[in-house]
């Protein structure tokens, strides 16, 4: 029987009521008395020298409060990068400055040049049009290969080239790697592109800066996944403000998918301008502006080679990737193609020799950073595509080839720096075979063929490193932050509980799922537990939500803090019952003395903690509030197997997703309904990448796909119902809940399944097509079939 409360139950989400009735409180819903509005004048060319910038006419326009340019920010810090990658020679990456407003040059379409603050948003926009700008256009740098050629135009004049770093992971001895390939019975090679995407959370970014002269305190309301990270970066690296005088509030946030992790110039600007203008300053991005200013995702070009012995065992893997950084280093950009990508190249397989080579490249495009999965989808796509191609080339079943090479013994040290603590890849594949009904595929294919369609079945596995991350490990790898999280459990006198968490919920349902854990630990009703998040003045210093980390890291902190609460409460209960602490048991919200009929209720103990008339004051303090910081011992490793069935119309090349099944191992699961929803959403985005989405720049650096009319995302009629199975569970061995994280799996696991299915369909129609780059559009499919 499914549980109706606690861990493993699926209570309805409590946050839904406000969202369903229009009572959500998103950042753009916040208006501060007396606020002014900012409009950013952004570059409409990709690369140019700013020879002149005359704001005088604009300043005379109605309602204008003040116009800021790069000159106003000389001496102010720039936007920092949070991860210093060390290259293959031991040298630090090239790290260019990233000013809040352009200084001397613009480096991508959308680079902010000036900011007009006015009484109304319309007045700010009108005045921006009156700014006289003299730009001397320079050649755009769009293609990564061309950007690395000698003599290429440099994006940053002060750097030696457009190469941010040249990085290697795994076997560094080139000769040893080559020998493994020379000794192979078969080598499969694939060149592919993991196209640039735009995260596109439905809520555009917004920032509202407020400053109180009386107290010298700043408040920033912002659309962020991690308010404390924003406060730290903005205070320490950009504006030089004391953290205790800055409050960052991320209220209801309308989706993030990674792109709301980063500290953006607009946040620092509104904070700075609110003081400079002595007025609250609000910025609301239009969607067009979001396309030009939100960090984008993916954009890798890769050659991958897989070596197999005569028995089809994987013997070596070598990759060469160019990764686009865009014009500046966004907050975690440098870590994505390296430590979040290279480390996953072992996948679910025991390949003994792996070498991952990555060159990160500056171009005159919008910066690129983490987008749902962040490096792991890129790794999975390459690996699972090359395995599928290899299976076809050596003439074996692609599922059998995968099973043959699975890691089956744990813990497993990969050749690319990770230790998988647990997993059961055959177990998830077994579940998938049922969920996807492999057995019925032949009949469905025959039916499709009767209708003149080609049907394909694509299967792949994935593994991800989540629960980011052990601070000491990431510190050694160049992270300029710790990646613990924190929770404070505050028990009120009458027994209800507020839990202040560092994680931020922007769709993940923490407000519902986190109380399930605390309530079960104590044995009280979930309605007695409330989650507080998103406000640096209310919560302990946590690192926020990304990398499928909330429950694995912040949830672990919450468990530890709740354990401290229970330990203290037992001491109080022992005192009340004149028993020994060691004899106190807590069950269903009642403390009892083992072997006796003595008991006191949870509420009696909590009241005693705050009304300590009869209290062991010599041993413990009054009150009942505990904080824990939790730094994970390892990453967590969600893994699974996905299957997609497509129909291809050979007349048009159109691909239709007919069936999609996912079998995931997320370890223990707190709320199955929410986990299903996370997987559904990830699959939706993964299908989007596979079939529809493409962020395209032309040769002059103009972004051609800069609106929802031009950037195709899945609509309801582009996707089917999904079958999701997460009954294969190997609990994480190193966190208290045994949980692994589920937020990114769908987006990581689904793109190769779709493309594998399309190739399978075309092959079944006698078309010898080895690969089609994403998005697998009708035009590309048709060209591949008829080329």
């Amino acid at each position, binding site marked *: 029987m499914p549980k109706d409360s606690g861990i493993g139950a699926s209570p309805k989400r409590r946050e839904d009521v406000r969202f369903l009735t229009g009572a959500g409180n998103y950042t*753009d819903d916040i208006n501060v008395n007396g606020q002014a509005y900012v409009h950013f004048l952004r570059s409409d060319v990709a690369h140019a020298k700013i020879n002149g910038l005359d704001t005088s006419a604009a300043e005379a326009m109605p309602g204008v409060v003040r116009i800021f340019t790069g000159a106003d920010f000389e001496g102010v810090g720039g936007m920092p990068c949070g991860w210093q990658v060390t290259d293959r020679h031991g040298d630090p990456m090239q790290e260019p400055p990233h000013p809040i407003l352009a200084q001397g040059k613009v480096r991508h379409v959308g680079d902010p040049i000036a900011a007009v603050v006015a009484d109304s948003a319309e007045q700010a926009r009108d005045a921006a049009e009156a700014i006289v700008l003299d730009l001397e256009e320079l050649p755009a740098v769009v293609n990564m290969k061309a950007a690395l050629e000698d003599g290429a135009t440099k994006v940053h004049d002060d750097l030696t080239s457009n190469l941010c770093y040249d990085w290697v992971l795994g076997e560094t001895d080139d000769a040893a790697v080559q020998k493994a390939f020379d000794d192979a019975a078969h080598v499969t090679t694939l060149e592919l592109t993991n196209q640039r995407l735009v995260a596109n959370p439905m809520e555009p970014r917004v920032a509202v800066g407020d400053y109180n002269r009386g107290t010298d305190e700043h408040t920033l309301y912002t659309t962020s996944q991690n308010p404390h990270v924003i406060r730290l970066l903005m205070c320490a690296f950009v504006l030089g403000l004391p953290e205790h005088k800055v409050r960052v509030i991320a209220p209801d946030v309308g*989706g993030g998918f990674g792109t709301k992790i980063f500290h953006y110039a607009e946040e620092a600007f509104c904070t700075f301008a609110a003081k400079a203008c002595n007025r609250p300053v609000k910025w609301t991005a239009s969607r067009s502006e979001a396309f030009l200013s939100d960090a984008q995702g993916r954009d890798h070009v890769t050659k991958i080679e897989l070596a197999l012995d005569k028995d089809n065992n994987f013997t070596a893997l070598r990759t060469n990737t160019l990764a686009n950084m865009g014009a500046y280093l966004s907050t975690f950009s440098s870590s994505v193609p390296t430590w979040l990508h290279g480390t996953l190249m072992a996948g679910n397989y025991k390949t003994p020799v792996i070498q991952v080579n990555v060159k990160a490249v500056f171009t005159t495009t919008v910066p690129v950073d983490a987008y749902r999965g962040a490096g792991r989808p890129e790794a999975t796509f390459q690996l699972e595509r090359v395995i599928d191609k290899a299976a076809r080339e050596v003439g074996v079943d692609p599922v059998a080839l995968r099973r043959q090479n699975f890691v089956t013994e744990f813990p497993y040290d990969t050749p690319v720096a990770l230790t998988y603590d647990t997993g059961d890849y055959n177990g998830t594949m077994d579940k998938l075979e049922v969920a996807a009904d492999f057995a019925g595929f032949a009949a469905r294919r025959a039916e499709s063929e009767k209708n003149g369609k080609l049907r394909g079945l694509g299967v792949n596995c994935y593994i991800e490193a989540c629960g980011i991350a052990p601070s000491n490990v990431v510190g050694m790898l160049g992270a300029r932050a710790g990646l613990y999280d924190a929770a404070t459990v505050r028990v009120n006198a009458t027994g209800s509980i507020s839990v202040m968490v560092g994680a931020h919920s922007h769709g993940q349902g923490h407000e519902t799922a986190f109380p399930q854990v605390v309530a079960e630990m104590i044995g009280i009703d979930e309605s007695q537990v409330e989650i507080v998040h998103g406000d640096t003045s209310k919560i302990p210093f946590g690192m926020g939500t990304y990398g499928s980390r909330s429950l694995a890291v912040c949830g672990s902190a919450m468990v530890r803090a709740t354990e401290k609460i229970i330990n203290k409460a037992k001491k109080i209960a022992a005192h009340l019952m004149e028993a020994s602490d060691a004899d106190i048991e807590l069950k269903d919200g009642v403390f009892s003395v083992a072997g006796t009929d003595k008991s006191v209720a949870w509420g009696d103990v909590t009241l005693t903690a705050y009304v300590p008339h009869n209290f062991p004051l010599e041993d413990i303090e009054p009150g009942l509030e505990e904080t824990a910081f939790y730094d994970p011992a390892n990453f967590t490793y969600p893994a699974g197997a996905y299957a997609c069935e497509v129909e291809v119309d050979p007349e048009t090349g159109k691909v239709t997703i007919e069936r999609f099944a996912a079998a995931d191992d997320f370890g223990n699961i707190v709320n199955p309904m929410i986990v299903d929803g996370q997987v559904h959403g990830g699959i939706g*985005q993964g299908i989007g990448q596979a079939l529809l989405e493409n962020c395209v720049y032309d040769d002059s650096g103009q972004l051609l796909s800069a609106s929802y009319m031009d950037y195709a995302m899945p609509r309801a009629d582009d996707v089917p119902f999904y079958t999701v199975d997460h009954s294969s569970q190997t609990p994480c061995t190193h966190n208290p809940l045994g949980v692994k994280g589920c937020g990114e799996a769908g987006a990581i696991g689904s793109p190769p399944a779709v493309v594998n299915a399309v190739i399978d369909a075309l092959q079944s129609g006698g078309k010898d097509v080895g690969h089609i780059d994403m998005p697998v559009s009708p035009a590309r499919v048709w060209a591949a079939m008829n080329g």
Partner: protein
Amino acid sequence: MTQVSMTVNGKAVSGDVEGRTLLSSFLRDKLGMTGTHVGCDTSQCGACVVHVDGAAVKSCTMLALEAEGASVDTIEGQAAADGSLNAIQQAFQDHHGLQCGFCTPGMVMSAAALLKENPKPSESDVREYLEGNICRCTGYHNIVKAIMAASGQDVSAIAAE
């Protein structure tokens, strides 16, 4: 500035607007009814869907002045006076048809318009009707399921896990 008057969720309202003021902006900025969301500037996303004289309209595509004298219904008017959710809202909660909540007001308003026209829509009817509403969180699975459930259909056979 011109004065515009209309009925919103059964209540007479009026305000001064510029000619260029959109209905979405009038609702949000002048009336403070922030349940209607704006997710794009090309009338693609549908987060701003409201009903104008009973018809689903993207309120970012209509000038406030065009709604002069009209009866406008928004997400704020969907629940009963005592706060209890209507059938569509309740089905969205029951079937986890929302995550971040940003597209949700538009989804609920579109679903209401659909069910008025087509009280028992098939899966493909729902999917086609929602082509003007983008959700980035749910992959649509539970939205489609919720709308079918709100129409009184048995959705228990639709894969949940």
